[in-house]
């Protein structure tokens, strides 16, 4: 099981702070595919980054059990 923290518009799309996927490991690109299929509203926002262990991740990075994963929709601090 991989838990994905959701913030801002992502939290509203998922309607929860956490999205759960029953997988052992997968790449960031695969996670995007699954997310976009399960929650089609993600394809209508400006895009999003994935953070793994509190660092921005690249699409080929592998996510494993125990990693802290988060969806980072377009940031707007300041």
């Amino acid at each position, binding site marked *: 099981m991989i838990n994905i923290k959701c913030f*801002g*518009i992502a939290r509203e799309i998922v309607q929860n702070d956490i999205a759960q996927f029953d997988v052992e490991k997968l790449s960031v690109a695969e996670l995007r595919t699954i997310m976009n299929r399960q929650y089609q509203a993600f394809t209508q926002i400006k895009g999003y980054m994935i953070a793994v262990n*509190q*660092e921005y991740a690249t699409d080929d990075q592998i996510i494993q059990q125990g990693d802290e994963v*988060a969806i980072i*929709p377009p940031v707007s601090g*300041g």
Partner: protein
Amino acid sequence: MEGVNVLISDQTLSIDQVYQHVVHESCGGICLFIGTVRNRNKGKTVTHLDFETYQPMALKEMSKIGEQAIHKFDIEQIAIYHRSGFVGIKDIAVIIAVSSVHRAACFEACQYAIDTLKETVPIWKKEHLEDGSYWVGARP
């Protein structure tokens, strides 16, 4: 890293506290950028903002900006403070303070820090209008 101070708080940010982090005997200049909440955006009346943060990662990214600023510019100290939660009109959302021996470096570093913060730090602003609310920058 020495010379870098970061904070995210749901309480009013203190200009004096940020200033005290950067004031330094070797420095001849301090540059403060203060981001405040304005009452209009794109022709609509704004009532307040709500900031959501991914706090541990946001603090890491803010620290990185401070470290990069110290590498890139000839500055002594930098402090970056950001609000979370409900922020009213005229209230302070962000403060960046930089000290340097000569003034040019602190102006440049301050601009670099706020510009980079807006691009990389995982903080989200929900703008509340008289007739609804939306996440800023999220939709094309």
